[in-house]
């Protein structure tokens, strides 16, 4: 289901490439989830990935921060090519924030601790400094007053915003969103999308798997349509709304719009 949210006027130039995928293959047993994906994402670019479920969208962005290991091709993030070296992987993960469909907040610690955990443990930031940063991020997602609560006390929309703050606290260069609003009640989708739109307008490089076409229209530089492990069509949001070329794209869009 989609909510009609009107975000007008968002244009952005495509900068230097920060993420490069060259001929990326991924197998789950015999099933090929990604078939030679080529993709470049420029700095400050916002790419929205759409497509039917099982088409490889999530697998694609999970290969960018090595939650899935790609089986062929090359993945380069901010000049670092992903290899089996754990230090190399850690380095890439420090530069990429990720937001999950099911939030995945740590339920046993407070909201503030969720956000300060990575800066303190990974960036070795002193407690005071990390907490100041965390409060800044929580203010950015508009829930500073919830800092001392536990994730279980918050609504889904609030939890997802905490998850965004948690990712932002690492001050990443790229943000990956894996269906961030799919698990939310309709009335909470907007509060999360608003935060994401602000983030995009603030110049964050983002890859977003979502079916929120209002969001795509407002801030996406490019929309990528994926099906059966392949990129079927790429274009501006305008292109997708007015003049989709491929049959599969047309069929899919007719189903979700």
């Amino acid at each position, binding site marked *: 289901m989609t909510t009609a949210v009107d975000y007008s006027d968002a244009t952005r130039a495509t900068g230097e490439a920060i993420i490069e995928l060259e001929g990326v293959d991924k197998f789950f047993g015999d099933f090929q989830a990604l078939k030679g994906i080529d993709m470049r994402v420029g700095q400050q670019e916002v790419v929205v990935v759409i497509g039917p479920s099982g088409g490889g969208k999530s697998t694609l962005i999970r290969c960018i921060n090595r939650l899935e290991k790609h089986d062929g091709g090359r993945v380069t993030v901010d000049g670092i090519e992903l290899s089996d070296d754990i230090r190399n992987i850690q380095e890439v993960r420090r530069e990429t924030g990720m937001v999950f469909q099911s939030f*995945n907040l740590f339920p046993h610690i407070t909201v503030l601790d969720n956000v300060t955990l990575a800066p303190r*443990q990974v960036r070795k930031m002193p407690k005071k400094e990390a907490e100041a940063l965390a409060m800044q991020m929580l203010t950015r997602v508009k829930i500073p007053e919830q800092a001392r609560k536990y994730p279980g006390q918050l609504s889904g929309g609030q939890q997802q915003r905490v998850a965004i703050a948690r990712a932002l606290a690492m001050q990443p260069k790229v943000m990956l969103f894996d269906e961030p609003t799919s698990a939310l009640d309709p009335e909470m989708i907007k509060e999360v999308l608003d935060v994401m739109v602000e983030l995009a307008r603030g110049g964050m490089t983002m890859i977003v798997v979502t079916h929120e076409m209002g969001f795509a229209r407002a801030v996406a530089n490019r929309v990528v349509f994926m099906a059966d492990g392949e990129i079927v069509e790429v274009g501006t949001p305008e292109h997708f709304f007015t003049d989709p070329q491929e049959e599969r794209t047309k069929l899919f869009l007719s189903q979700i719009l």
Partner: protein
Amino acid sequence: MTVEAPVFEETPPQVEPARGPTDWARKNLFNNWYNSLLTVALAAFVVWALLALVRGLLGADYEIIRANLRLFMIGEFPADQLWRPWAATYCFAVLFGTVGGSLAAEARDRATEAGLPNVSTTLRQILIRFWPILVLIVVILSFTTTITPTLLTVGALAVGLGAYYLGRAMPRAIRRWTWLLAILLIAASYLALAGFGGVGWQGWGGLHLNLFLTFTGILVAFPFGLLLAMGRRSSLPVIRTISVTYIELVRGVPLIAVLIAGAFAVGFIIPRDVRPGFVTRMLIAIIAFEAAYIAEVVRGGLQAVPRGQVEAAQAVGLAPWKTMRLIVLPQALRATIPAMVGQFISLFKDTTLVAVLGITELLEATFVVNSQPAYLGKGLFVVTLSFAALIFWVGCYTMSRESRRLERKLGVGER
């Protein structure tokens, strides 16, 4: 295939709420002739059995317990050294009090910060929570012949309660060092028992030995169990194979076999002059055995942590061991609390198995006193066994209740 619904002719489909005990009895106990017959026959049997037990216990001569109370409690500890177990008891009173108090204060502070309602424990609630223990203490004290043990026990309870309120009042900065105080108190209690010409654990017995074997067994086995559980999930085949083999081997053997192996088989392997004493060997056998069970309990907890938690930790760049320590283990161990207490309860009862090897723990003590010349052939087993049963039941029931309470508080099963 069709399944026919069972037909209840006597009960109407709409079950009316029972109006009173008479109605309830008519509906559930006397609803037809054979149920009525069964009810009467069973009731007669239960009444007869209870009467027999009560008559046996009321009419019995409790001299056997009175005369052997010290043997039941602390085994063959020298009579002139009794200040030592008492000193240890006071150490533990302070330990439980302080730890309990500071945990309560910690929970209170966290709840306040998170804006949750906080209910502080009152003295009345503590009494309600621990009534079985208090009843047991009264029963045991009723078998003492002088006033001294009663005074000392009341003193210990008072000290424990005082320590609880002190622990609750401690500021956070001091509260952080409670674990150090706990270790110091445990060391002090052991020193009080065994130091300066006292009796080491080789000479312990009675309930004291059961408690020692249970607590030490679980505490020492826990880290090993944790390592085995993580080893079982390791991606390195060698570690995984070793862990699985150990766990499955030990779990496939009865505890008593491990104890007998520790008692006799080890004797052939280790030369006499470096061979540890009997109780130590039993303790090692218990630890080796419990580690395998704890490993399986922990594994269950590890599996209960959703995959997304690990992914979220990885995604923010947390190193694997930090992911384990900060994200997975705290959640996994919380989920294992009920099973862990179950393990604790069964070990408490299983420590009686060391009796087979001639160690006078509580159950064995309640047996051997029946062979004393004064009581031989008087059929007082029902008295001594009931006494031992009461102690074990109170211990296990209290632990089980506390575990359920802890579960509710930590919200196990809720996310």
